[in-house]
């Protein structure tokens, strides 16, 4: 069938036409985006392991890499690699859905390099100079936006992100407008436009701390429990159409219902962050009720994935992609739905707010929903971008091992942090003689060690994932 040797990056416009697997050769611009995503993912995990060690050996790498610096690198790399993944997914699936070439492949490649270089410079800035110096060098005083969780990037980097996002949206929107309009591409575009629009709130940083926090959540919550779910739903639907051959009408009906439930529950669900930050007490009712329903769309996503695979009309040779798609359904529901519900009712959140319970949920939700859906897309598209319908048997087996190692170790990371969190709440926030924060932390160090061990296994899984790209062998699917 196809050759396993076309592993080199094929620039669009040149000999990409040699790749018979691509319906539109401009889809090839997705490839560097996916490669960058995986590279930054590795960086994210290395800094996660550094922090995990700092949790138990407090002076590890101090003062070279203080905890707050490692944390910025860890979380910002996460966001940036997911954005690379979403963009790669957009560049791959929009031409195929629109049934025409991308409006401008060249612009997509320019945007890629701008984004990668700006991202790399920002990370180097975090690591090379004190944060206050970085703020001064980048003119933070002109428009102060730095120093807020997840939004630590210098203001000029934020502007850069907006510019890259606009070129991306321009490119894709024109492609859709000129081509076939499908539900999947429409939902993808709505999600991506929403992503860009809500990011604009990162430029609003009033001195009034309550207002600052109120609108900070318009970026963070309305992203992960709002517009990103549209992107996720569209990506999952696209892959399921391809690997199951189920009628598009059915899949698109599901997609609309899922994202309807997302926005119906998730927008007012923002209220679960407005319990204790100075906002009126009625948010405890609104936030609890609506966010308690937020697991519904995630559960529908699980049902959706399994239903479509069970009703499949074809057996796609890419078994690994199917595994990732099903895994996304399950893990997103566990991480966002179950672990989110765990602490979303105001009386519970009163005790767990800002503890390791929050961290446990943050990890499984981000991994289960967004990391996994990006990997699902990469798993499906990358073999095609490399000129074959699916990877060979051995490569797929290695990829499936990496799936299980990463996913199971993430379950354990979550469980260990949950145990740590329950003990933390018990010792520090309940009873007549609560312990000081640092005293309680020392008493739960055991669970932080276990988390770090699970983190090492996660890293091994990630290395194996990368290895799977280099395993050669016959292009025959595993049974």
């Amino acid at each position: 069938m196809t050759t396993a040797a076309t592993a080199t990056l094929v620039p669009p416009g040149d000999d990409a036409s040699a790749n018979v697997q691509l319906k539109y050769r401009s889809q090839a611009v997705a490839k560097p985006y996916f490669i960058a995503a995986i590279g930054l993912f590795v960086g994210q995990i290395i800094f996660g392991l550094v922090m995990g060690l700092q949790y138990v050996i407090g002076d590890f790498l101090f003062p070279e890499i203080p905890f707050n610096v490692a944390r910025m690198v860890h979380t910002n790399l996460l966001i940036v690699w997911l954005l690379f993944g979403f963009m790669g997914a957009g560049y791959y699936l929009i031409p195929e859905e629109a049934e025409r070439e991308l409006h401008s492949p060249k612009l997509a490649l320019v945007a890629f390099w701008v984004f990668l270089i700006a991202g790399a410079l920002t990370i180097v800035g975090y690591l090379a100079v004190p944060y206050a110096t970085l703020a001064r060098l980048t003119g933070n005083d002109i428009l102060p936006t730095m120093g807020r969780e997840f939004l630590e990037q210098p203001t000029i980097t934020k502007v850069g992100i907006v510019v890259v996002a606009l070129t991306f949206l321009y490119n894709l929107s024109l492609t859709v407008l000129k081509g076939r309009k499908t539900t999947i591409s429409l939902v993808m575009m709505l999600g991506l436009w929403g992503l860009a629009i809500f990011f604009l709130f990162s430029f609003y940083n009033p001195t009034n701390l309550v207002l600052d926090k109120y609108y900070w959540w318009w970026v963070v919550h309305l992203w992960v429990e709002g517009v990103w779910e549209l992107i996720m739903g569209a990506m999952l639907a696209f892959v399921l159409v391809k690997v199951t051959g189920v009628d598009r009408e059915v899949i698109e009906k599901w997609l609309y219902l899922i994202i309807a439930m997302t926005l119906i529950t998730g927008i007012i669900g923002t209220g679960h962050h407005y319990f204790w930050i100075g906002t009126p007490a009625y948010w405890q009712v609104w936030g609890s009720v609506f966010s308690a329903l937020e697991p519904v769309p995630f559960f529908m996503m699980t049902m959706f994935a399994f239903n479509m695979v069970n009703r499949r009309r074809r057996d796609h040779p890419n078994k690994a992609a199917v595994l990732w798609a099903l895994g996304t359904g399950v893990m997103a529901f566990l991480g966002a739905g179950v672990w989110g519900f765990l602490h979303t009712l105001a009386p519970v959140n009163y005790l767990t707010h800002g503890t390791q319970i929050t961290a446990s949920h943050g990890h499984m939700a981000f991994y289960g929903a967004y990391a996994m859906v990006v990997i699902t897309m990469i798993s499906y598209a990358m073999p095609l971008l490399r000129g074959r319908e699916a990877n060979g048997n051995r490569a797929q087996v290695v990829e499936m091992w990496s799936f299980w190692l990463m996913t199971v170790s993430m379950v354990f990371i979550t469980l260990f942090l949950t145990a740590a969190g329950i003990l933390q709440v018990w010792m520090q926030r309940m009873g007549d003689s609560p312990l000081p924060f640092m005293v309680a932390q020392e008493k739960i160090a055991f669970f932080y060690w276990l988390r770090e061990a699970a983190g090492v296994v996660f890293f091994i899984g990630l290395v194996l994932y990368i290895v799977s790209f280099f395993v050669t062998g016959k292009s025959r699917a595993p049974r």
Partner: protein
Amino acid sequence: MSASFTKSTARNIFYGGAVFFFLLFLALTFDTTQALPKRDNRANLTEQVARGKNIWETRNCIGCHTLLGEGAYFAPELGNVYQRRGPEFIKAWIKGQPTGAPGRRQMPQFHLNDGELEDLVAFLKYASEIDTNHWPPNIEG
């Protein structure tokens, strides 16, 4: 799903639901904005507090600590540190970092001068007087 439930029904639920609940969210936001002056301690938002918030941000304190329960979980809550420790302790603490105690979690030295320390303390005092519906549960944060 039954065949009578069509894709366009699903689409209408999506658009209708999204628009309705977004408008409801805007209405609640409007009401919150009206209610905030009584709760968010804006009467004490001085120039000094504004400078203090800028110092808080440009040192990335949120990268280790929580403030009103949001941030990182590596170091203690600071929304109520003003009540827990008092202004003099806070200033002495920041000046004394890092402790250098082997194996203990370390906080960087930020080289803040006395004026900057006052600004930062003013910001923490302002933050501690926001009406948080009685959160945190106790003084340990």
